[in-house]
């Protein structure tokens, strides 16, 4: 399934909805979306991942980029990650670095 990353600004929140398969071929698309979000100086980054079917380490590296680009005070929320995508985040310790929630708000 083709990858898409859609940004929506809601007040001081940047909301990005991820769909499809996030591999190294499309990770830059996600990175550019995060960059556009960062320019809005949000207080919170909310990533909706319930329709994300696959995430390689290239996707995890964009999460690291997001944190380092937006700063320590911007919390990252990951919403709806399930199954293997969630496992990948847990194996790499990312579940401790973001707020994982089943739904939002």
């Amino acid at each position, binding site marked *: 399934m083709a990858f898409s990353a859609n940004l929506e600004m809601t007040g001081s929140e940047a909301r990005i909805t991820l769909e499809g398969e996030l591999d*190294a071929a499309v990770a830059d698309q996600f990175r550019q979306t995060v960059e556009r979000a960062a320019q809005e100086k949000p207080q919170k980054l909310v990533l909706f991942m319930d329709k994300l079917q*696959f995430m390689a380490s290239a996707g995890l590296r964009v999460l*690291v980029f997001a944190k380092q680009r937006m700063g*320590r005070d911007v919390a990252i929320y990951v919403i709806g990650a399930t199954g*293997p995508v969630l496992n990948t985040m847990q194996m790499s310790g990312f579940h401790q670095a973001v707020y994982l929630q089943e739904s939002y708000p």
Partner: protein
Amino acid sequence: MIQHSLPASLAALSDIRRLVTQACQTAGLSEDATYRLALAVDEIATNIITHGYEEQGMTGDIVVSLDQTDKDLTVILEDTGVAFDPRAQSLPTAEDLDKPLDDREIGGLGIFLALAGVDRFDYQRSDNVNRNLFVMNLA
């Protein structure tokens, strides 16, 4: 053994995952094991394409071989890029994986996920060919 030759470009990653996933489904692997194998192959293929070929200014192919026996499913990736043994790379430690994202080094995660996700991984280099082998046991 079934073989497919694909151009070594990142655009081929989804095709490689599809081939692996189809072989897993034919072999009756669980969804979890299927995903872990597809992720492992994807991560090593990404390394081959970016570090083995593109960063060297080289082009070439990746040959994907799929072999099922009554005991296991084996995927082999072969390429003619620079020699690269994933097992020889430094992997993130437990301490690294506990670090907040602000302090994370970007790198090493892909190989970590690949090696951790399969039942057996092997690498050989002979006649200027890299050979990465992934094995998943069948229940």
